[in-house]
């Protein structure tokens, strides 16, 4: 080794952001060595700290290399300190140290298997050939296995598995791809793949420890070939696999999971498979491709194409996978085992797999071996497990891309580790909403939004929230001194918070206000803008159910300035489940005569007697809570135009309407193509009310409406136009969007088109969901920030 040049400068550098769990320290070591620099690097809390000395130009070069898109690099020149115990020749990686928890730390994310590891995995000459837990500095589990910070082997479940001498040698070798790879392991020292199967049909499943991975995979593929359901313990939870081409097998999976209708996603072996079908089965844009291969490995929803006569060899997906929806969900393998199974099934059977979380519908994802083993037989036929415990169970994340925008529908694995900067210093816990629940923590100007949990009415989900809260709060030594919940008095999340808060105060935040604040935190918004929060329903400050809210944000103040004219929800929660009630309620509010309404709305699924009784409820105002939620307008139109009488799952009727309208955009000759569902603004008590009565009367009374042709699109266009009308009325150039209604790809398109013409900017977050999955983040702010509702 040549003599290092005389140190001319000593620098202390800290790096924050996406800096751990991505092999940054070994890379820094290589750069420093190449530049002939001396010093050390180490993980410190959630940051990387380094002290380095060398020539000014070498230091400059190092600084340039340290810059990265997800990193904040701070550096300071410091005086040489001869007493620094770390000062020794060369550049070394020191053991990580913890830091006092004055804020919440960025936690390293689970990363889907990288191309290099995948290649090694399939290479028969490699020492990790068919080793299911292969990982490196670029990929592998992180967040889901963490028990403490900072990210180091000893602080994960791998701490129980000492590396073998071979792995140790690779770990210490700066030339090796796995130099300082914390979770380095091989078949000799790593976790073991286990098969859980009943020893005789009908028996309780037991673990068979004698089988080698190859044998286990053969068993699994045979089971899948026969249409069986195989459960696989993945990075952050159990998943169920079944061959995607077998209608009856998929239907059986739906039955066992008690998920009769909601679409399922595919696990496909490669991007190539997706690309081969792009333009035939579905559309694929470049951002969707990027997400498919991104380390987060989310499920990406690809818009289905409706082309007749598709080659059956290309269409190897059974109808039961994703019927009646405009999109098909696709994901690429996140682990070597998923890749192995997907590849083997593709090679041997020529079909992709359906992949879904292992749980009963409405319950949280299973993640413990014993919980899954006890379900073999009634949820799956075979279980592929391993002997590492999962600490932070998470579902797969779901998103779609459209015209360059990413819309996150479910934020979980790969995303849920990240921190947000928030203007909140004290320790606050926000418990989120009741549906698509996530919780959020804030402390010292940073916040963490927990992974997707689900419906809080389920006891198991409630317990999972407690479990994850303890785990994640434990990672950060977080103890709240304030709790925030939704203002809905009936929300289980709120009641639970209030009843378990002890001495802590529980503040409540209006639902749509929290939505707007979540956008405020995660989007680049100007001083003055309009925030549209359109969703299915949320408790308003006047004790009615809001959901077409328009807030004007200016000078740090928020004012509710517009909403739709209200209507009744006949039968309360039933009105949300049965869109025909909404068609009736809107007709009642729009003063269409009862005879006409009942005659036109009677169908094979909804009788005149039912309609009459519900009409009576509207007349008597019996159990008809008032609402102005946009989602309900979609429901009403969906029944009137398409006869969708039941919301088979949340948003189903609106999704049907969207699908129909998208078909109409293609068939431009539709009779209703030029018509529009025109909403007019009326001033009422200082609030602008979007008056939809005349528009509904037009839509309702159209003669040709029976076929639904043209009007589904006209309806969407009317809704988009109202958004722009509001922007014009209040003279803003920026629209911030949130709420489930804006997850509608067509509405996004129409809005983007209109905005372009009117030189408006429409903005929605890509880091959090538009639905209630992002609510908790906004709740945090309302607890401690001047941006409050001033009305």
């Amino acid at each position, binding site marked *: 080794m040549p003599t290092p040049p005389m140190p001319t400068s000593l620098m202390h550098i800290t790096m924050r952001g996406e800096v751990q769990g991505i092999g940054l320290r070994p890379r820094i070591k290589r750069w420093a060595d190449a530049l002939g620099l001396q010093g050390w690097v180490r993980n410190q809390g959630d940051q990387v700290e380094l002290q380095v000395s060398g020539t000014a130009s070498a230091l400059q070069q190092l600084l340039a290399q340290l810059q990265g898109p997800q990193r904040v690099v701070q550096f300071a020149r410091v005086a040489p300190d001869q007493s620094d115990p770390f000062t020794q020749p060369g550049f070394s990686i020191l053991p990580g140290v913890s830091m006092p928890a004055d804020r919440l730390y960025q936690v390293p994310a689970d990363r889907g298997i990288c191309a290099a590891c995948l290649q090694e995995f399939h290479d028969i000459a490699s020492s990790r050939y068919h080793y299911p837990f292969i990982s490196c500095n670029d990929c592998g589990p992180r967040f889901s296995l963490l028990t403490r910070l900072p990210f180091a082997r000893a602080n994960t479940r791998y701490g129980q598995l000492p590396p073998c001498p071979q792995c140790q040698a690779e770990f210490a070798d700066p030339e090796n791809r796995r130099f300082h790879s914390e979770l380095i392991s091989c078949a000799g020292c790593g976790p073991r793949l286990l098969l859980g199967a009943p020893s005789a049909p009908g028996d309780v499943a037991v673990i068979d420890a004698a089988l080698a991975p190859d044998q286990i995979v053969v068993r699994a593929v045979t089971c899948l070939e026969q249409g069986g359901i195989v459960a696989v313990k993945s990075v952050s939870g159990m998943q169920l696999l079944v061959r995607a081409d077998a209608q009856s097998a998929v239907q059986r999976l739906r039955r066992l999971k*008690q998920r009769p209708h909601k679409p399922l996603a595919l696990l496909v072996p490669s991007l190539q498979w997706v690309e081969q079908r792009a333009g035939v089965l579905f559309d694929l844009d470049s951002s969707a491709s990027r997400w498919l291969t991104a380390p987060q490995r989310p499920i990406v929803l690809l818009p289905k194409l409706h082309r007749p006569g598709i080659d059956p060899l290309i269409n190897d997906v059974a109808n039961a996978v994703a019927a009646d929806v405009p999109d098909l969900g696709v994901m690429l393998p996140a682990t070597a085992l998923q890749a192995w199974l997907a590849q083997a099934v593709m090679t041997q059977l020529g079909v992709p797999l359906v992949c879904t979380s292992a749980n*009963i*519908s*409405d*319950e949280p994802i299973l993640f413990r071996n014993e919980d899954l083993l006890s379900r073999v037989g009634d949820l799956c036929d075979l279980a592929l497990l391993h002997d590492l415990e999962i600490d932070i169970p998470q579902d797969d994340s779901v998103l779609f891309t459209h015209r360059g925008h990413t819309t996150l529908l479910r934020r979980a694995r790969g995303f849920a580790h990240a921190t947000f900067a928030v203007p909140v210093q004290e320790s606050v*816990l926000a418990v989120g909403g*009741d*549906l698509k629940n996530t919780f959020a923590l804030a402390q010292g100007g940073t916040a963490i939004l927990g992974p997707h949990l689900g419906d809080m*009415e*389920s*006891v198991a989900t*409630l*317990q999972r929230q*407690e*479990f994850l*809260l303890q785990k994640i709060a434990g990672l950060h030594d977080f*103890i*709240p001194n304030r*709790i925030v919940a939704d203002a*809905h*008095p*009936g*929300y*289980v999340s709120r009641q*639970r918070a209030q*009843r*378990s*808060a*002890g*001495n*802590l105060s529980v503040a409540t935040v209006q639902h749509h206000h929290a939505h707007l604040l979540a956008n405020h935190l995660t989007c680049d918004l100007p001083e003055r803008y309009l925030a549209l929060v359109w*969703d*299915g*329903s*949320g408790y308003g400050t006047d*004790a009615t*159910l809001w959901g077409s809210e328009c807030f004007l944000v200016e000078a740090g103040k928020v004012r509710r300035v517009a909403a739709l004219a209200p209507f009744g*929800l*006949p*039968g*309360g*929660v*039933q*009105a*949300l489940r049965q869109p025909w009630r909404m068609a009736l309620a809107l007709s009642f509010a729009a003063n269409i005569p009862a005879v006409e309404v009942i005659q036109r709305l009677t169908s094979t699924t909804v009788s005149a*007697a*039912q309609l*009459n*009784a519900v009409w*009576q*409820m509207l007349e*008597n105002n*019996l*159990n008809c*809570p008032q609402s102005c939620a946009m*989602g309900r307008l979609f429901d009403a139109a969906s029944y009137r135009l398409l006869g969708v009488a039941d919301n088979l799952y*949340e948003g189903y009727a609106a999704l049907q309407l969207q699908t129909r309208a998208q078909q109409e955009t293609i068939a431009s000759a539709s009779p209703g193509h030029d018509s529009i569902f025109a909403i007019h603004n009326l001033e009422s008590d200082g609030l602008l009310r979007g008056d939809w009565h005349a528009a509904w009367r037009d839509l309702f009374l159209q003669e040709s409406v029976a076929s639904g042709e043209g009007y589904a699109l006209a309806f969407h266009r009317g809704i988009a136009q109202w958004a722009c009308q509001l922007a014009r009325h209040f003279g803003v150039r920026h629209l911030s969007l949130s709420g*489930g209604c804006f997850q509608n790809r067509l509405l996004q398109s129409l809005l983007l088109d209109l905005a372009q013409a009117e030189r408006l900017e429409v903005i929605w977050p890509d880091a959090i969901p538009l*639905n*209630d999955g992002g609510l908790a983040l906004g709740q945090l702010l309302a607890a401690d920030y001047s941006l409050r509702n001033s009305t």
Partner: protein
Amino acid sequence: MKESRILLTHGSGGEATRDLVQQLMVPGYGNDTLRQLTDGAVLPRLNGTPVFTTDSYVITPPFFPGGDIGALSVMGTCNDLAVMGAVPRWLSLAFILEESLPLERLEKIVQSIQRTAQEAGIEIVTGDTKVVERGKADQLFINTAGIGELLQPLALSPQRIQPGDAMVVSNDIGRHGIAVLASREGINLDVDLQSDMALLHPLIQALLHNGIDLHCARDLTRGGLGGALLELAEQGGRDLRVVETAVPVSDTVQAACELLGFDPLFVANEGCCVLFLPQSQVAEALAILREFSAGRWATQIGEVLAKADQTATTFSSTTVSGVRLQNAYGVERQLGWHTVDQLPRIC
């Protein structure tokens, strides 16, 4: 009594009042104590511990399928005593009448009170009548207070609920609320539905008399079964698990609830109670209950869990107890406190 309607003078305390009481009420439900028309009733000593309760009755409409406000005002108070484990003995009865209430209606109510008191074996020993101006009341309000007697040493109480106890409902739920609502709103439910009004102490006394170790009972009134269970879980500090499919609900009530958007668990009852008793005595208790017409559909609906959920104590030492509903697939959901108007919480 020349006037066929109640006048303000009927409540003045003068002659008209005396006439009303003498001619209508005393003949109706009079007994030796009441006939003395003294300022208070002098009651004999009881052998057992006395139990005392009161309740006010305001219901629209006052006559509904299966009953009226008069019968209700006796039964409701008797049932409050019954679920304490007491035998009803004496009742006070106070009317607040709206000016212009037809006398004929009052007469019917008085007759109904008489019949019910007789059936209950309770003596009406003191009373009061006031009249308010038209519009100040909805026809009539009634307040009753009752004294009952415990024949056993301990009253029934949520504190006596034990882990492992069985939960039994005495009859199918929801009939009163739906019957009253349908008749008030004039909604044609196309069914013949009657209130479930019934006296509960015969059932409860039969259980006690036959050696059933009853721990707790609660009559299911305004908040329905759900409201009662939530209260009991909190008061008893226990987690309760209810098997949703076991809860007896008639097809008629179920269909009406689906149409109206109500949860039968939160619909009012007037002749139904939930009972907590040792699991080992369930079969025997059900056999006794089913002997009564008010216990025909008595069913075990769930059990008391070992202890309230301790995992809820992340950030405080408060123990959260609650009610879990288990559906047909074994999935449990937390029963929430419904807001008065059952505002939807789903999106």
